[in-house]
């Protein structure tokens, strides 16, 4: 692990503060995938959750890069994340070439996308598994027990955020909470497309403009996304703000 203990403490402090405050789950999970990249020294990370269909669905990813998204989506059918969700254990693979027989399609897609090592940790809630965290590395790494425990802690934070957002509403089951969160995520994707077209930019940059706009307006990301899609948000203003926002990396 290369991240300093102080930095890890800072990130955990920020994350738990967000959870006890008014949590915006889609924004939170998107940000969390970035923190996972940093703290776990990974190239890409993503959270997948089991939806009502009984299949794994990407809830948040650290990137919009199509090839990497493919590697995440593919794990709905095969790969360490599916195995982790099925067994409830963390699944580690320090060298992908060793796992070509176990996960032929996943290993092929992951190595083509430039990954060499990977692991997955499960999102557990009591005796249920809601999904998992997929961590992808671009070099063979020693997956130390400390690293895996750290990843599991970050995964548990995601679980708490996912099921906590709506506990104040009655009559809602976990399956409905997940469905609502997935639907909010679709809304955000639609808004990214609308904004990318208005601003004539990439969906990645449109997402940054969207998050920024939501923060400025003090709105939940999904609520602001709705305003963008239904045309009530001022896209010209978002455009000006996006132009004046320095680009951040990672």
């Amino acid at each position, binding site marked *: 692990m290369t991240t300093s203990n102080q930095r890890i403490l800072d990130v955990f402090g920020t994350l738990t503060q967000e959870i006890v405050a008014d949590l915006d789950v889609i924004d939170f999970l998107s940000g969390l995938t970035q923190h996972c990249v940093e703290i776990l020294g990974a190239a890409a990370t993503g959270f997948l959750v089991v939806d009502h269909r009984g*299949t794994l669905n990407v809830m948040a990813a650290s990137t919009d890069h199509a090839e990497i998204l493919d590697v995440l989506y593919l794990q709905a059918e095969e790969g360490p994340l599916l195995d982790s969700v099925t067994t409830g254990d*963390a699944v580690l693979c320090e060298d992908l070439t060793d796992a070509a027989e176990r996960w032929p399609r996943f290993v092929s897609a992951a190595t083509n996308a430039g990954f060499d090592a990977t692991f997955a940790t499960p999102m557990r809630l009591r005796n249920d598994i809601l999904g998992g965290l997929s961590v992808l590395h671009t070099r063979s790494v020693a997956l130390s027990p400390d690293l895996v425990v750290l990843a599991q802690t970050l995964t548990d934070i995601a679980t708490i955020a996912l099921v906590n957002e709506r506990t104040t509403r009655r009559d809602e089951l976990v399956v409905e909470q997940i469905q609502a969160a997935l639907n909010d995520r679709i809304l955000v994707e639609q808004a990214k497309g609308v904004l990318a077209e208005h601003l004539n930019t990439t969906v990645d940059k449109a997402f940054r403009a969207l998050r920024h706009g939501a923060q400025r307006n003090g709105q939940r990301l999904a609520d602001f996304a709705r305003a963008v899609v239904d045309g009530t948000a001022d896209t010209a203003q978002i455009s000006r703000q996006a132009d004046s926002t320095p680009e951040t990396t990672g």
Partner: protein
Amino acid sequence: MVPRQVSTVDTVNRHRTEGVESPVENGRVARVWATIRQHAERDGEPPSLRHVCSACAAAVSARGAGLSVNRGHGVQEPVCAVGPADELEELQFTLGEGPSVEAFAREAPVLVADLSSARTNRRWPMFAPAAHERGVRAVFSFPLQAGIVRAGVLTIYREVDGFLSTVELADSLVYADAAMLLVLNRGKQLASDTEHQVSDGYDERRAEVHQAAGMISVQLGIGVEDALVRLRAHAYAENRRLADVARDVVARRLRFTRERADNPDSEGPDPEREAPA
């Protein structure tokens, strides 16, 4: 440490006494579509919304199920029903109250296990007694939605009280997905076989599909639902996967143009390709 290829670590609960049950069930969507096809074949017709209703009702041991679709401007219209749902769907829209109306407005499932309770009678003072009179004891409504797109509502009418089981609830949500796909097909037979329908539904979850729908809605100056309809119709016409076409739109290898979209005589969407900028 012993060299390992793939290893597993129980990081969560080293002292757990019972194993977890896998939540993943990759066959559910195919199983649901197979029942819809069975109901369609019985009628000697291609699968339609009516077959979603009848197959869904059978799957959850209900007497009736009904579907309403969104006609825009907040207008919801019943389009098909089986069993007692027929009258009850109409009644809800006449009265402006009931589970379908509420699920549509709230954009969330409405699950009522006991229609005769005092609480339900206060909630729907006219609908609840009318439904009870027709032998209905529990109602469950599921919106057909994808982000901003609200295509309609699937409602199940059961003559026994009590909640749906976990499996019935999950199945109902998948029947609602199937209904959504058929609504988005706009009456055309796009997906011809179950395998196609399953992969179609699978692609429907991809981020790129919804990003592309957002982009097309701006390109054509139309709503996101219509943009999604056009995207799907284009993928079908070109015999390509929805996710692949969506990716072309997001990468700006494919653009939908307004002239073609505005021409009602054109044979479906026929977007012009433009070279990447």
